[in-house]
Structures are given as C-alpha cells and as structure tokens.
C-alpha cells in the first residue's frame, strides 16, 4: 500500500501545515516527490541515509527508492549513471556535502554530461544551526553557480519549494535545489500581513518582484534573507525611502533583464543583496558581476561574515548574530543612498 496518495490528499504539497504553521520545504518536497514518483517512472529517489524518507511508503515506486548509505561521492556518480540510462534521479543529501564532499562527481559526472540529476540539498546556509560549521553551507551558491550547465535554485518558502521543484523537472540538465531544515514563514502570509499586494507566481529562472519602490533595489534569496529584505522595505518606507524587493530564487541562470530593469526603474544605481552565504561568490557576487557588466552600479552585500560560525544557536539566532537582518539591510541601503 502506498501512503503517497492519501498523504498528498490530506496535505496538498506546498499548502500550510494542518497543525497551523508553515511546513518545512524539505517535507513539502518529500511529499510531492512521493506523489510524482507514482506517476512518472523515470523518477528515482537516491538517499544517503538522510532520514528524510523514514517511514515513507513509496508504494509501487518502492524499487525506485534506493538508500545508498553514507557515501556522497558514490551517490552523485550513481545518479549520473542512472541519468545516462534514461532516468531522472533525485539525490538527497545536505547542501555542504553536495557542494564540497561530492563536488568533483557533481562537476565531472553530472554537470559535464549535462544530465538531468536533481540535487536536493537540505541544510542550506545556517539551517543546521548548532550542528556547527561542518554542517553549515555558506559556500554552496558560489560553488554551484560556477559550474556550467547547472541551474541553482533557492526557494524562499515551502510553497516555492514545491513549485520550483516541479518546474525544475522539465529541465534537461542538472539542478541544485537548496532547501533548509526547519519550517520557515510562509511568504504569501508575510506579504498579506504587510499589506503588500499579491506577488506574481514563482517562475523558475525569473526574478520574482515582491514589492516596488522608487529608490533602491533589495535583491535576496532564501527564506530569511527575503524576509529581511521585506522587513527592511517596511522600515525604509517608514523613513520615506521606496524599496523594490526582488526574490532571486534562481541564482543561476540569473535573470539579469528583470534585475537590470528594476535598477533602471529606481533611477539610482544602488542594489543591496541579502543572502545566507559567505560574502564571496554568492548572490551578491552574481548580482555585482551581472550589473557591473552592463553599467556602473553600487552593490552592497548583506551576507554572513567571512568566517566559520562555530557557536551554538538555531538558524534565526545565528543569522541575527551574523547580521543578516532587516536592520543591516536598512543600514546598508541608507548608507548607499546618502
């Protein structure tokens, strides 16, 4: 018997947690995957003892779930072999293990061959909290966006996880999907609370504008950075500064057109980027690269400071401590506009 059907019916993917709060992106993804695997037998779920699928019943798709154990390099190589044989493998591991431990296999076996492997990477950024620096992934966006053929996606809430994962299945090449660990606030609810009109739906490869303002562009990716940008926009509005907030969930390929148009629309070449990542090479870097190519622009980065975060605390605590906050975004925007 497959629990996929009933479970999916009880809790539609991307919907709110029946218990009230939002659902973690990785849980949303898991339920959706179980549903999709039942319908599409190209899909294969490769696990690396993550525990994410404990107790999951794949029903008739059971032979397409394989736990390959604690061996992330092998995981990527096996995925490439399967993909080369016509399958669409989902590989499940943590973000830093995908980006560092198994990187050469990702580069050579998957990216070079341009194979449709979906690397579903949990514990992005500081989501691992007090698991510490060995489990933080503050380098993954820089690394993954350097690789040719790779699509790099960092959804900002559970709903976006479901939508972007579903959309990514259409792509012929590899995808890196950066998820978190615990549930994070629902973006639509946050926007509603802030009285901001509905944002356009999330579309893979396109920047999602969340609100529009005339003075500065705030570009963010991932749950808390996007919330920080939204919070900053509120505060800036109170100070009479209009901020455009862009959810840059697809870090590669970067939607330069929308980004550039948004900057042009403000009339001031100032962007503040926000990310849960080290300052080098990530979203801020991608934005700086792309805009500097077109016209002189100031890009100020709000990121995790350049060092290992070797103190205990959960994701929100560590982000606060690292200064990835609405207040920091406000400061940087104000400084830049001064």
């Amino acid at each position: 018997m497959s629990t996929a059907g009933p479970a999916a019916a009880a809790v539609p993917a991307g919907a709110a947690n029946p218990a009230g709060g939002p659902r973690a992106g990785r849980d949303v993804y898991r339920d959706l995957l179980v549903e999709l695997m039942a319908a599409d037998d190209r899909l294969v779920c490769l696990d690396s003892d993550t525990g994410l699928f404990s107790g999951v019943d794949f029903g008739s798709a059971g032979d397409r779930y394989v736990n390959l154990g604690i061996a992330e390099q092998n995981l990527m190589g096996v995925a490439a072999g399967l993909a080369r044989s016509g399958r669409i493998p989902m590989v499940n591991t943590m973000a830093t293990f995908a980006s560092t431990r198994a990187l050469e296999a990702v580069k050579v076996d998957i990216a070079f061959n341009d194979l449709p492997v979906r690397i579903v990477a949990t514990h992005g950024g500081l989501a691992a909290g007090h698991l510490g620096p060995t489990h933080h992934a503050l380098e993954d966006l820089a690394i993954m966006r350097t690789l040719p053929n790779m699509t790099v996606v960092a959804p900002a809430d559970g709903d976006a996880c479901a939508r972007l994962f579903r959309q990514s299945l259409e792509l012929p090449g590899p995808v890196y999907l950066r998820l978190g660990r615990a549930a994070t606030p629902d973006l639509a609810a946050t926007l509603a609370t802030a009285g901001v009109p509905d944002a356009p739906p999330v579309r893979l490869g396109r920047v999602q504008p969340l609100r529009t303002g005339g003075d500065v562009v705030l570009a963010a990716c991932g749950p808390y950075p996007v919330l920080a940008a939204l919070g900053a926009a509120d505060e800036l509005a109170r100070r009479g500064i209009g901020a455009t907030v862009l959810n840059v969930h697809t870090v590669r390929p970067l939607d330069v057109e929308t980004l550039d148009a948004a900057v042009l629309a403000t009339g001031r070449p100032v962007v503040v980027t926000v990310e849960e990542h080290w300052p080098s090479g990530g979203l801020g870097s991608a934005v700086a690269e792309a805009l500097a190519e077109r016209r002189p622009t100031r890009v100020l980065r709000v990121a995790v400071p350049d060092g290992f975060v070797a103190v205990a605390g959960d994701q929100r605590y560590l982000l606060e401590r690292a200064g990835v906050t609405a207040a920091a975004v406000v400061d940087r925007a104000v400084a830049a506009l001064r």
Partner: protein
Amino acid sequence: MPPREPLAVAEPAELPELPEPADRVEPADRAMLPEPADRAALPESGDRPASVEAEVAEVAEAAVDLAAVAVRVRELIVGMCASADGGHLGGSMSLVEILVTLYHEVLRVDPTRPQAPDRDVLLLSKGHGAIALYAVLATRGYFPVEWLDGYAAPGGPFLAHPNRAVPGVEMPTGSLGHGLALGVGHALAARLDGSDRRCVVVLGDGELQEGSVWEAAMAAGSLGLDRLTAVIDRNGLQLGDGTEDVITLEPLADRWRAFGWEVREVDGHDRGALRAALTEPGTGRPVAVIARTVKGRGLPYVEGQVRSHFARLGETQRGRALRAVRRGIR
C-alpha cells in the same frame, strides 16, 4: 606497544580559558538538570595525582568508580538530549564505555595541560557523538561538569559536533569520514618527532560507508602506523536503518585486515575487554578495535532501535531516562 614514558611536562599547568559565550541563554529548565549521582567518584580538580601514570593506576584500581563515571556520563548525555535542540542520544550512549576507558584508563593525557606536546590524541570521527565526548572530558576534569548545562546554548561553544573551543577537543569533526585521515597525519607527525604518543580515532559503523575512511585505512596500513588505533563503534545501526539493511559492512574484520590492520573484536560495553584491546602491544600494524555495542545503551526501551539516533527529551522522558541509566547497565 612498548612501555611508555609518562607525559612530559612542558606547559604551564593552567586550564585554558573557555571563550565567554557572547550572549548566553540559560536553558529554560536548568533548575531541573540532574544532580551528580556520585560526585565523590570523580577526580577533584586541583587534587590530582602528580603523574598521569599514577593516576591511571589509581583509577584502574578503583574500577567500581569508573562504573559510576559511566553512569554519570550517561546522565549528562541524557541531560544534553533534554536541551532545547535535543541531541544524538543513541550513538552517544553506545560510546560511553569506549570513551570512559580511553580517557580514564588508556590515553596519556593531562586535563590540566590539554596541549602537552607528547599527549595522546583522540579524534572522534563520528562527531555526532560529541555529547558523550563532552561528558567524558568533563568527568575527566578538562572543565567543570556544570559547563554542560550550557550545551547548545545560543552563542556558547557546545555544538552538536566537537568544537575546539571546548577544552580537550582536538579537532572538529561532524562530517563523517574525516577523522581517520587526520589520525594518519597525527601518527605520521609522531613518527617524524620520534615520539611514542598515540592517536586513537573513534568511528561509527555507518561512517565506514564513506570512501575517505578506506583511503586513510589503506594509507595507515601501508605505512605501518602502529601508534594509530581505530575504534569502531559497531552498534549495527546508522541514521535511518541497520547498517546491513542499507549498505552492508560485513565481513567487517576481513575488510580491515585486508587493508593492512590488526583487528581486535570486543564487547564495547565491557571496560576490561576494551582496556585490554586498547593497550595490548601491536605487531607493527595499526590496530582496529571493533567494539560491539548497542545503540542507545542504558535505555532499555530504545536499545538497538534506530529511533534512538536523535532525541529531544521532554521532562517526562528525561526523568524516565535518568532513572534507567542510574539503574546501571547489567
């Protein structure tokens, strides 16, 4: 292994400062933290035997006290698993006798001089057993046991994986499969130094699925690093299932032997057997001690169960767990 000199005195005998947690938050239920079961059995800081060898001898005679230390370590583990973030319960419980035996009876270490140049080095390659390591380091006198109340406290040094800010922790681990290579480096350094110091690396069994372990195993075997010991916590379970149900490790002893190691198999909860396996002289090869253990050992209702891997214990669960570990393991 030839008889060894006691640890040379080369450093000021002062406890390193613990970095002050920036904005330490007290665990909500701190008042409820377990009282030491038998504090008298623990070595009192400031009241240490002059030489480590002497202390080892003294402790060995007081075998009954080490049983109490093991109980105390389990209590502390339970306490940390009752923190807001929970803890890696099962794989810490299976480690208790291994780490107690190593730190209290085998390793040439001096808690007052954690950086002494000729100390033996322990690397917890299965870094998620950190709370067992922290507890044993505390009972061994590296820092006050009370510090563990701050386990996982925001801003504090007590991460879920070994953090070097904690006195006695040698190198950070947590991503599985790193420790043995580090150990090869330590053993090579000792050889270059002409030192008889040892390096002991403690690994999980699931961890052995990482290829990096076998790279290091093969190097150690080939280089004949006889001051290197690997202890494998063979509890038969990994995060989500039994090891043999995921990617089988058997015949495990054959694997290590084929990679150039001497293998010793013991009951990993029998301190006497562990002590013998960990001290008996080797034959020019690195030694792998396969310690047969039970994940969750000390908590009969989760022993050998995969759900013991990680737990966030509520009040009731903590009380129950404390009662169970105080009853002792057979």
